[in-house]
């Protein structure tokens, strides 16, 4: 099998660096170019010191990009759509890690991103990149829009219950706790260490941008309308969604187990984590750092019809670059777990 030639646009950021780390060890991929305007001409390890001695690749400018088989876009939101024709001309397959092409609905984009979409004509061309929901579409996809990290954790936690039609679709309340890497590597006053360290910052009690994609993906039978809040916590990596859903029928915990097992029993990267004893009884994001797993657990309130769903990921992996590589593997017909086998660390 000849290598797939891959280029990464925006390779000095956190998701770009994660993608480089993964693809350097992918047996069927050759990274041909990695762009960064700020680091052009410098070793990739200058931006990603974990790759010292691992690769001698240097960053190039976007202007120097050549044609390749698959182009990954790891650009700030808005940039991929603005320069789409240039990027689309370079490769038959494009995987975009930004939010630019996640939504189908132009009005929803305008509402959540406070701008008119620069290329609404393209919105229908992209497959939403969560394999557990769209694996068949990904096999033939030419354009993939990777999901948001908070959206990925929330959707994977809730999708089985929504698909089974056992919850009230308007009544779910989701609280996501996220690490600081989710904000990217551009500094601002709020990310200054003495301000950020030790914080529990309610940065988005309402109006989070990922709500639009969550509602769309969960609108299986009825239109979903989740109530979503996000809190920044003192971790670098990790996102954990605690979702309060309300059943529309009487179910036991065993019934709920069966719903989740039916959805995820054969999934390579979703694990049901719900144990009666031990130290880690529910999903714990710190154990997932560097892995492509989404761990999903739940508990039914014995005194009400509420089910608390807990779902955790590494935001840079299953929430971004890992999801992108999983999508690449599906698109190219590789074993889905290729380059994604790292099981994480304990203790960590």
């Amino acid at each position: 099998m000849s290598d797939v030639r891959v280029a990464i646009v925006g390779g000095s950021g956190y998701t770009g660096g994660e993608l480089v780390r993964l693809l350097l060890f992918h047996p069927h991929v050759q990274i041909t170019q990695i762009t960064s305007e700020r680091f052009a001409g410098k070793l990739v390890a200058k931006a990603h010191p974990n790759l010292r001695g691992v690769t001698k690749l240097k960053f190039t400018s976007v202007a120097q990009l050549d044609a390749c088989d698959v182009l990954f876009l790891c650009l700030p939101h808005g940039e991929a759509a603005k320069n789409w024709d240039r990027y689309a001309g370079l490769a038959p397959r494009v995987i975009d890690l930004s939010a630019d092409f996640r939504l189908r609905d132009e009005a929803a984009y305008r509402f959540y991103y406070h701008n008119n979409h620069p290329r609404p004509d393209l919105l229908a061309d992209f497959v939403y990149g969560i394999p557990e929901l769209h694996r068949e579409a990904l096999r033939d996809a030419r354009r993939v829009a990777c999901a948001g990290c908070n959206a990925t954790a929330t959707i994977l936690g809730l999708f089985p219950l929504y698909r089974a039609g056992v919850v009230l679709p308007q009544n779910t309340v989701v609280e996501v706790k996220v690490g600081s890497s989710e904000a990217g590597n551009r500094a601002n006053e709020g990310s200054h260490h003495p301000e950020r360290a030790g914080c529990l910052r309610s940065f988005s009690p309402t109006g989070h941008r990922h709500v639009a994609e969550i509602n769309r993906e969960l609108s299986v039978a009825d239109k979903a309308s989740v109530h979503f809040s996000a809190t920044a916590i003192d971790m670098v990596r990790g996102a954990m969604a605690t979702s309060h859903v309300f059943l529309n029928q009487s179910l036991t915990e065993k019934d709920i187990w069966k719903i989740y097992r039916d959805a995820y029993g054969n999934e390579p990267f979703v694990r049901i984590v719900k144990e009666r004893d031990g130290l880690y009884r529910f999903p714990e994001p710190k154990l997932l750092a560097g892995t492509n797993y989404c761990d999903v657990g739940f508990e039914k309130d014995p005194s009400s019809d509420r089910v608390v769903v807990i779902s955790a990921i590494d935001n840079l992996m299953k929430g971004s670059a890992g999801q992108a590589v999983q999508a690449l593997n599906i698109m190219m017909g590789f074993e889905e777990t290729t380059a994604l086998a790292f099981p994480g660390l304990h203790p960590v």
Partner: protein
Amino acid sequence: MTTTVTVVECVVCGADVELDGTTLQGELIDCDDCGCELEVASVAPFTLREAPQEAEDWGQ
């Protein structure tokens, strides 16, 4: 020698639990899915129940 495997449902999560002719009444078995400790309540027919749990030692 082959023994006949009987599949019984975990009483906690509904996963398949395999028992066979070597399984004894009172034996403790861990469910692979939910990690729950199950006690073989009877062997003819096979029935399971959740094993008594030790005192809780888990907190914040």
